[in-house]
């Protein structure tokens, strides 16, 4: 098949360097990802081994079941997390004393890129909640007690976690959250509501951000580990979402929920700061997770438009289509470079808030652009639920919203550029 395709290329293209022609026909995305990564020399042999191993796990234990789990509206978190935990993938950057590997953040990014090979957005997102949202502060600031109770079993995959920050009254506006954790003797009494909680129905514990004292909104909150079987916790019905359908999402009510005060992570009043600290990692992780789906979209669209005939020739022969795909490929490489640069600086100890916010902003925007353009090229088929591109269109739309909305990212970047207007001073 390859040989006969070669003979049909018009004469003027024979002068194209051989390598360009070779890469066009390699059918699977993963080898191409590897080439792009190796070329950048950002990853070492161990990173690539990690990705190979994780890709194998995804191919054998996850991808064969994704379609079914998407239809059922839930993936079995405990089963999947246990498999990942046993292979060491849930504690890549976590302390060795608690079962982690204590590796630097580049390994987290490598893992994020490999996770993007799952055929849906929901499962990588759920895994990222466990590794990059609910546990970083715990690992860094938690007492031995909470680390033993909650961190170690989360790293081994025995417990599923969720993050309780967003509320019905505010997601982006974290400082204005209303849930309270009132100190009563040796306990906290928690009252309030949380919204958009991923892994809600399957989680064993929640990393909860709540107001624990009066005072300035940035200084009065704490992170508390809350076991999800504590009396007083009510899960409202499953939220019916347009995408990420195999992820269980819920609104959660807390009515006089009593947890031991020793379940607090770190210092009282530092919750907001801890949460902000882990945002850089969360945003870089979000960008890393989008790279593979974007490449898959482009590759699958190339395959489809190469086979699909219209007006006597493959769709791909239309300049609008192959030029557009080249534009999109360029954008993906730009995002990858930004991510690698930010990660390298972060690992070197720099504050990468501005770059990480740019990574998040760009990936949110790019996934919409690429999934939309690719879906268009798929025509009627793109509109069905039978193809991957429409699932990615739905799933990836969340990236611009969750984990820090585009608008919040823009505000952060403006702040670093010195162009964010001052809030009008309140008259006393």
């Amino acid at each position: 098949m390859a040989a006969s395709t070669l003979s049909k290329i018009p004469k003027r293209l024979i002068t194209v360097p051989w390598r360009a022609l070779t890469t066009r026909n390699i059918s699977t995305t993963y080898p191409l990802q590897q080439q792009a990564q190796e070329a950048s020399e950002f990853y070492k042999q161990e990173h690539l081994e990690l990705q190979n191993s994780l890709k194998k796990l995804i191919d054998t234990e996850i991808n064969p079941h994704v379609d079914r789990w998407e239809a059922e509206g839930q993936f079995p978190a405990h089963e999947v997390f246990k498999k990942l935990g046993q292979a060491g993938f849930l504690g890549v950057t976590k302390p060795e004393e608690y079962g982690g590997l204590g590796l630097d953040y580049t390994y987290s990014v490598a893992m994020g890129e490999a996770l993007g090979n799952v055929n849906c957005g929901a499962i990588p997102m759920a895994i990222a909640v466990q590794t990059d949202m609910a546990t970083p502060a715990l690992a860094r600031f938690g007492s031995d007690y909470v680390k033993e109770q909650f961190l170690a079993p989360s790293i081994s995959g025995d417990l599923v976690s969720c993050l309780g920050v967003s509320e019905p009254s505010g997601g982006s506006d974290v400082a204005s959250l209303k849930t309270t954790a009132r100190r009563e003797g040796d306990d906290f009494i928690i009252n309030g509501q949380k919204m958009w909680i991923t892994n809600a129905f399957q989680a064993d514990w929640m990393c909860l951000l709540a107001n624990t004292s009066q005072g300035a909104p940035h200084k009065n909150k704490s992170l508390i580990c809350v076991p999800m079987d504590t009396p007083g916790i009510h899960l409202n019905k499953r939220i019916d979402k347009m995408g990420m359908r195999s992820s269980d999402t819920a609104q959660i009510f807390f009515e006089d929920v009593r947890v031991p005060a020793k379940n607090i992570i770190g210092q009282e009043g530092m919750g907001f700061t801890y949460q902000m600290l882990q945002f850089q990692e969360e945003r870089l992780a979000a960008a890393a997770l989008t790279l593979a789906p974007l490449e898959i979209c482009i590759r699958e669209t190339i395959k489809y438009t190469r086979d699909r005939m219209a007006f006597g020739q493959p769709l791909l022969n239309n300049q609008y289509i192959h030029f557009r795909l080249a534009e999109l490929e360029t954008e993906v490489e730009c995002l990858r470079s930004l991510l690698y640069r930010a990660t390298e600086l972060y690992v070197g100890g720099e504050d990468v808030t501005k770059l990480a916010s740019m990574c998040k902003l760009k990936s949110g925007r790019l996934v919409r652009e690429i999934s939309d353009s690719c879906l268009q090229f798929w025509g009627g088929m793109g509109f069905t639920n039978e193809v991957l591109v429409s699932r990615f269109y739905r799933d990836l739309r969340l990236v611009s919203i969750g984990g820090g909305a585009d608008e919040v990212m823009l505000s952060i970047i403006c702040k670093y550029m010195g162009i964010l207007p001052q809030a009008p001073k309140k008259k006393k």
Partner: protein
Amino acid sequence: MSLKVLVGVKRVIDYAVKIRVRPDKLGVVTDGVKHSMNPFDEIAIEEAVRLKEKKIAKEVIAVSCGPAQAQETIRTALAMGADRGIHVEVPAKEMEKLEPLHVSKILAKLVEKEGGDLLIVGKQAIDDDTNATAQMTASLLNWPQATFASEIKKTDGELEVTREIDGGLESIKVKLPAVVSADLRLNEPRYATLPNIMKAKKKKIQKMKPGDLSVDVTPHLEVVEVLDPPVREAGIKVDDVEGLVTKLKEAGRI
């Protein structure tokens, strides 16, 4: 009796890659193409590591012949649980012409040098599909062979091996030392866990050349031409048996 096990692993083009014939029609494109460990060799390594876990084997040594990148394949074997590796360096250009007989000679010499009790290899490599290395190595060593193994059991000084053959399954007993070739259903290889991948960095890989083992790798075979298989032609639908017979007659088939 704790066995010293050698496992032969080969670096081949990844099974998922679409193979392209080179323009000179003397081979396939390998530049910039993803390579991995031959799937049957993964099964061989997995079996050796399981023998070690059952305390039947005391050491697992992964061996590979190839260019510098063959070390990556050995590292994968180490990450799966092999104790150390031996890399027999064969430059890329010579690798194209390396034949099973050369590899068999190399493996035979290594097994003797190391004092191995058991050699496990994949039944065939997915690039040349020759299915000859295990058999020839056994012959050179004058050892018994158990090929296409789908199950291996250790009894006193012997192995009971179930072989997958055309007619079904065959059970044979072979005395140790022996050569075994791994078939698809022998086991399901583990994915290297992250802790083991990191530990593999510290394991040793010994480097040597075929000349160090007094093996001559002059090719005996010459590739004349490499072609794609013929393109599958479209079929046609017929309405009934009469239509089928008519079409077959028209095509001169009957």
